[in-house]
């Protein structure tokens, strides 16, 4: 017989969890006590805030493909997880969060640090449960892992009352392989594949849009094989970046509000649109009434609730896109679409001239964010991971970072959570200390979770932090400039001395204000073995273009 708290830890070990990201407190103390005895089998990372713990777990899960594990106490510990849960839910990140809860007999009595975590987290979890008896702990954790990682992944939460943690029970871990009410994978309908292949074979201007679903399904090779055979141009969503090397001849760029010119504009010129593992987010589609109305739509998608949700499709292909893509590749004929691809290249040229060259090669005035990313590309390792926060720097880094391999981007896509990057970079780095992890963050966002510099210090994770400091909540300021008559209402920041802060956390730190110092600084950062903090002071009022303004159609993407 062992204590419930030991069952918690043994269950996590049985699931081969490598890390727990957490923060202790009264209602979870028995589990922390148990952890003390298992430090050789599972590593615990003490963050500085529970939000940091869950974002770190997200970063870890996103780069590793494994389930991120989070541990927190009841009440405020648990409520601090809510942002991360919502983020992981909308970005389909597998997490198991375990929270302590007051003893079962106190439930509902407003006991100290009691909060209805199951109720609070319901909209932000794929599944959640409260466990009040020791014998229910292991089955709940087993079910939690199964649900988190299968089908469309997502966060789950297991709330365990304190009495269950201290009671004694048998430990006999049985992994969960099936939940009878839950169908994570739909069988693929061969007729749909045949119908889709017929559409693709007769299409004159077919167009592939791929998203994170490709990464989650480990279908990168299948996507490439499909594109190689069909010659169809392909564009990615924010979270799809990296699923296909950007050097691939069919790769035409990025979709969405701050994506590339051609991929947005030509969405309304294709005749068959093939969406793979993407969900037609409004940031991708712009005005739905004027989105790809001319096209027949084929949607390869795992989650039935995504079919026809935003865009009505002609042929849905439900199921794992790793399988459906290879069936589709078999069914289509070999083709090429050179003239159609040429139209993308032409428009790409226009974007280069109007936006890109200035973004990447400034000559006078303040530094542009793009110049920094351009130099990062020059010195980074091939499989370096880019972690970004939310704002202008996020869009610029995404636009210009050279994505060569899969799972090299971690960013908060669906929720747009400022403060995500720093802890997520830590989690991404812990998955592999040898990989280069480059955390690009704004002066606003870094201050939302800046305390996690302490966790980076304690874990010695060699994260490279690139702070792009424009002294503004830049993205909001850009909107104020464009849509609110330049009324810069509460977006300018009086910032601290970031270098002193970084140094206080034992980072090697350097601040660059001049163009001529930038290259050496980036080079120095990327050969540094340990953590490094590079602050680059950039032009205060630069804007991100191209842009599709809210309510506009993809055709109205503007270059300035």
């Amino acid at each position, binding site marked *: 017989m062992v204590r419930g708290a030991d069952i918690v830890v043994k269950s996590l070990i049985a699931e081969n969890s490598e890390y727990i990201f957490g923060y202790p407190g009264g209602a979870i103390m028995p589990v922390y006590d148990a952890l003390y005895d298992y430090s050789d089998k599972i590593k615990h990372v003490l963050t500085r805030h529970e939000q940091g713990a869950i974002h770190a777990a997200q970063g870890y899960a996103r780069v590793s493909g494994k389930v991120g594990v989070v541990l927190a106490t009841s009440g405020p510990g648990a409520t601090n997880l809510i942002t991360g849960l919502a983020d992981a839910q909308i970005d389909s990140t597998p997490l198991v969060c375990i929270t302590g809860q007051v003893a079962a007999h106190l439930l509902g009595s407003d006991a100290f640090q009691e909060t209805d975590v199951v109720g609070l987290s319901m909209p932000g979890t794929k599944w959640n449960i409260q466990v009040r008896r020791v014998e229910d702990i292991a089955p709940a954790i087993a079910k939690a892992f199964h649900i988190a990682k299968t089908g469309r992944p997502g966060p789950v939460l297991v709330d365990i009352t304190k009495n269950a943690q201290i009671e004694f029970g048998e430990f006999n871990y049985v992994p969960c392989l099936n939940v009878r009410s839950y169908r994570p994978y739909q069988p693929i309908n061969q007729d749909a594949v045949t119908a889709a292949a017929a559409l693709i074979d007769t299409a004159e201007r077919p167009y592939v849009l791929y998203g994170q679903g490709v990464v989650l399904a480990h279908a990168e090779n299948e996507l490439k094989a499909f594109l190689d055979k069909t010659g169809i141009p392909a564009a990615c969503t924010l979270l799809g970046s990296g699923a296909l090397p950007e050097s691939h001849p069919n790769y035409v760029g990025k979709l969405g509000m701050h994506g590339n010119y051609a991929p947005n504009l030509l969405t309304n010129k294709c005749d068959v649109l093939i969406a793979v593992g993407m969900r037609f987010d409004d940031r991708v589609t712009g005005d739905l009434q004027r989105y790809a109305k001319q096209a027949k739509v084929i949607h390869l998608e795992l989650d*039935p609730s995504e079919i026809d949700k935003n865009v009505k499709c002609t042929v849905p292909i439900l199921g794992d896109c790793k399988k459906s893509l290879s069936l589709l590749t078999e069914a289509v004929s070999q083709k090429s679409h050179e003239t159609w691809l040429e139209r993308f290249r032409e428009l790409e040229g226009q974007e280069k001239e109007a936006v890109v060259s200035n973004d990447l090669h400034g000559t006078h005035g303040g530094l542009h964010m793009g110049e920094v990313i351009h130099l990062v590309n020059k010195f980074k390792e091939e499989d370096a991971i880019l972690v970004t926060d939310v704002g202008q720097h996020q869009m610029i880094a995404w636009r210009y970072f050279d994505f060569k391999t899969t799972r090299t981007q971690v960013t908060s896509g669906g929720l747009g959570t400022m403060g995500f990057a720093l802890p997520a970079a830590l989690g991404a780095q812990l998955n592999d200390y040898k990989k280069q992890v480059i955390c690009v963050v704004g002066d606003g966002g870094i201050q939302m979770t800046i305390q996690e510099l302490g966790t980076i210090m304690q874990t010695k994770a060699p994260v490279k932090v690139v702070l792009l400091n424009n002294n503004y909540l830049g993205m909001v300021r850009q909107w104020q400039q464009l849509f609110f008559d330049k009324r810069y209402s509460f977006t300018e920041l009086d910032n601290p001395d970031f270098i002193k802060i970084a140094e206080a956390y034992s980072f090697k730190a350097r601040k660059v204000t001049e163009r001529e110092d930038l290259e050496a600084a980036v080079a120095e950062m990327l050969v540094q073995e340990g953590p490094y903090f590079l602050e680059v002071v950039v032009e205060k009022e630069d804007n991100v273009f191209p842009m599709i303004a809210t309510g506009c159609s993809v055709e109205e993407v503007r270059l300035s």
Partner: protein
Amino acid sequence: MNRYTILVYTENFIGILNRITIIFTRRGININALTASESRLDGIHKITIEVTVTPEQIEHLVKQIEKVVDVIKAYYFMDDEVVYQEIALYKIPIASLDPSLEKVIRQFNAHIIAAEKEFVVLEFTGHKEDTQALLEILKPFDLLEFSRSGRVAIAKPRFSVQEFLNNQT
């Protein structure tokens, strides 16, 4: 907008009702009526939801409901595809009992199911339109209280939750 009946078959799991209702709340959709009960299958619950929405909305809602891990299966039907009933109770003061009321009771085939010193309770089962019609008629009789249940429904088209469960892969 149409009136639909959604039948949801679920595991008997704490919080399942909440998980289902927040799908409606989040989208600002009002639930006309909701009834939860046992189903024909042991351990499987049946939730009957009546809602007035567009055809696109009903598709969307039912897919979202089916996405809930502990939901086994959800179906939706138009009014003519289900047999449904609602039960209504009416509390009437004794002083209001007179021959014209007797006529109403006979006409509707309603039942007096309780008689107290001060009041009687009428029971009448039917579609909402019928129980509503009786309500309007009884109001002038100094009706003291009225209560109507949510819809209980049986679908006419054949489907089998059991078969669905058996086909588990």
